[in-house]
């Protein structure tokens, strides 16, 4: 497993799509606050409130989709390049190969999902004066939760990327899936009330609760943290099972 992890890490840091996406997000995170002319409106907010209303909304709506592009390159291109053949025939078990790939893809996705919150929050903190003291612990909690959900979403992306061995199809399908999954689940929940509890406890429906992170009680917080972890483990096992049965062309 160690060899596989080292290889995947090496490929991650050399991955052009990863570097490009990260670079674009960093530039955007630093430059976007400069477009906010008025310091007045911002100064009424605390840094955490700005983080919630500005940074997280961009991150939840747009940045969540960027790992879909990364999945298309980092996972699917292994099939189109033929390099998955040399990995699968290298004398490592399929289970280990899949988990090494999933873990490194998750790390990449977490990194992508954290760029905007970290860089934009830092840059606005330098540029603007905020109202009141900053609750850094709450911010760190939010970063931790983003990481957990990024990993859970990555486990879904990894399965789809493994099934569709074509980068274009994978990216298209993933973007469509992540853009539509919440409205679809909302619709199903309204029609099938018996599924309400189950649907409410999916990572898709739970993630928007990040906006109420400071209002969650202990039970809600536990659920909020446990569900992405369980999703990652369950979908990781499912994905490794699919990969184990898959014939690599």
């Amino acid at each position, binding site marked *: 497993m160690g*060899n596989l992890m080292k290889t995947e890490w090496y490929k991650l840091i050399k991955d052009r799509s990863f570097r490009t996406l990260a670079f674009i997000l960093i530039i955007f995170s630093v430059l976007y606050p400069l477009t906010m002319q008025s310091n007045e409106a911002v100064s009424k907010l605390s840094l955490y409130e700005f983080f919630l209303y500005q940074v997280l909304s961009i991150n939840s709506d747009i940045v969540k989709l960027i790992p879909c592009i990364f999945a298309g390159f980092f996972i699917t291109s292994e099939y189109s*390049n033929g390099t*998955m053949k040399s990995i699968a*025939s290298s004398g490592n078990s399929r289970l280990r190969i899949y988990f090494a790939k999933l873990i490194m893809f998750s790390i990449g996705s977490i990194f992508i999902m954290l760029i905007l919150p970290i860089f934009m929050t830092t840059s606005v903190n330098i540029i603007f004066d905020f109202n009141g003291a900053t609750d850094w612990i709450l911010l760190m909690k939010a970063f931790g939760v983003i990481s957990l959900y990024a990993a859970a979403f990555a486990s879904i992306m990894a399965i789809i990327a493994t099934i569709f061995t074509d980068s274009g199809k994978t990216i298209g399908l993933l973007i469509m899936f992540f853009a539509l999954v919440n409205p679809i689940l909302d619709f199903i929940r309204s029609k099938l009330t018996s599924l309400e509890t189950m649907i409410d406890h999916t990572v898709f429906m739970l993630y928007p609760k990040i906006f109420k992170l400071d209002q969650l009680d202990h039970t809600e917080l536990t659920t909020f943290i446990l569900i992405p972890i369980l999703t990652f483990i369950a979908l990781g096992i499912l994905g490794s099972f699919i990969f184990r049965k898959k014939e690599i062309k």
Partner: protein
Amino acid sequence: MNEYVLKTNHLSKKYQNKMALNKVNLSIKKGSIYGFIGQNGAGKSTLIRIITGLAYPTSGSFELFGESNERGLTEARKRVGTIIEGPALYPHLSASENLEAHRLLKGIPGKECIEKTLKLVGLQDTGKKKAKNFSLGMKQRLGLAIALLGDPEFLILDEPINGLDPMGVVEIRELLKKLNQEYGITILISSHILSELHLLATHYGIIHEGELLEELSTSELNEKCKHYLHIKVDNPNKAATVIEGILSTQNFEVLPDGSIKLFDYVDKARDVSKALTGEGLIIEEFMPMGEDLEAYFTTRIGGVNRG
């Protein structure tokens, strides 16, 4: 000690309604260079993909270094270097970066092996040039370098000389011979260039429509590549009648261009020419010849039928 690196036992693979492999019993002796011959779609790549763990057999089994269960096979594959259906490269990485990724994958300590392997395949001067900008021949060499990383005991090479220039073909042939003779590496090589395979292989397996038709050593092949008399006369039909009548043999073949292959009387050419000229035939071409691997293969898969 196991004499065989690879042994298959009634190995079959079915894709929907097509049998890609049908009860194949193949064996590759340790230290041999096994030339795997077959047309496109004959089942060569399917067998290679099963051996390397990319596909699963429908029925049958195989032993790799004496291992046949899943865990044992996974371990055994660490001793194998492969090129499967073309070199597997990361296009945005340079040659040394590609090798580094594979070195890490195979857990080879130290980076010295990268320079050594690049030198071995003649790619030591490619610098930071990305693999996507390599010529087909360079990509093949890099694929071979990847296969050679970690000093494998068994090389599985699917069309490794595709796209190489004539000098490149010679170099790779000499390299493979060296690896086989000096390091004792067993090699399974499939290639469409049968003349090249003939210069390299010590054993052959001929596969056709999923069935292994024959396995034979070079000496057995030489034995079987019958010599014959190549005859061209002004009237091939009359010549055929003469051969059947006067020489009393049906062991000949009239080719579409009118030339005749006579498999008997190779050591009695004078008798043949005497019989033909005696019947008033004008001989245009007359020479003893032997079948090469290509001709033998064509005959074996039923491309040419002897009369």
